[in-house]
């Protein structure tokens, strides 16, 4: 069981887990961070190395994802842009991503975390500035790590329940934000046609 590795090998386990999560490998990093927080509170792990490992792995994973998109994705992206059918939507998608790059990268670290790795690849492939990407990645990963390790420290005595609640609260926040954005789009259409 993965949880049993956390008390003794928490630091390397967290580093590898968050690193691989940022490259689309399905690992329950959020649960592992909750567990690590709980073991910090119970005196089994030290807080600083745990936070540093989780944050370091995540930020490094983002950089590798960006690098893969930058080097490998660019030829695919150029081909998509040149395509007669794929060109216009690809250009529009790139424009949107560039316009809201900071927000997209930030929120895809923790609120829409399933999108995170794909945003990394797309950011590299569409040549979003490295500094802009890195700053948003650092802020977003810090939010992710602080949120889950913090929850683990405070509520970790009930690890299973905290995991279920945190997952649902994040899900509710994400779905609520999407509902607000779609509702705004619907409202604007109605107003335009009224």
């Amino acid at each position, binding site marked *: 069981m993965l949880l*049993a590795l956390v008390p003794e090998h928490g630091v390397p386990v967290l580093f590898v887990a968050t690193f691989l999560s940022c490259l689309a490998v399905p690992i329950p990093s959020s649960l592992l961070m909750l567990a690590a927080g709980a073991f910090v509170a119970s005196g*089994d792990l030290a807080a600083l190395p745990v936070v540093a490992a989780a944050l370091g792995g995540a930020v490094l994973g983002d950089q590798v994802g960006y690098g893969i998109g930058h080097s490998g994705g660019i030829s695919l992206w150029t081909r998509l842009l040149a395509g007669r059918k794929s060109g216009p939507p690809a250009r529009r998608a790139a424009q949107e991503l560039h316009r809201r790059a900071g927000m997209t990268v930030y929120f895809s670290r923790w609120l829409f975390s399933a999108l995170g790795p794909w945003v990394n690849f797309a950011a590299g492939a569409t040549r979003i500035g490295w500094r802009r990407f890195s700053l948003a990645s650092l802020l977003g990963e810090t939010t992710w790590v602080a949120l889950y390790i913090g929850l683990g420290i405070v509520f970790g005595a009930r690890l299973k329940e905290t995991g279920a609640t945190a997952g649902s609260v994040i899900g509710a926040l994400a779905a609520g934000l999407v509902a607000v954005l779609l509702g705004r789009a619907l409202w604007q259409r109605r107003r335009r046609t009224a």
Partner: protein
Amino acid sequence: MTRPDRSPRWLIAAFGLALALFLAFTLHALWVVTHLETAPGPVQAWMTPGYVMRTYGIAPEVLAQTLGLAPGSARGKTLEEIAATQGVPLDALLASVQAMVPQ
């Protein structure tokens, strides 16, 4: 003939789906929180003595005596590792810790 200015169906459907998911997640979170009063589940192999003390409210000295250890000497060790080190069957060790849990 369809009206070109009408909101597309996919947009309405996506909005409805997002709202439904928002409600479902919120209700689930509320359900879990309102059921926190129930006792925590059984003691498990991945737990450490520190985690057991915090979760089940067992005094350090009592747990240390049950495990045959000095208080704080098994930092970072799971109950499974402690059982293996002591050559005790894991189930027996878990049962003795479980017996310490205040009812």
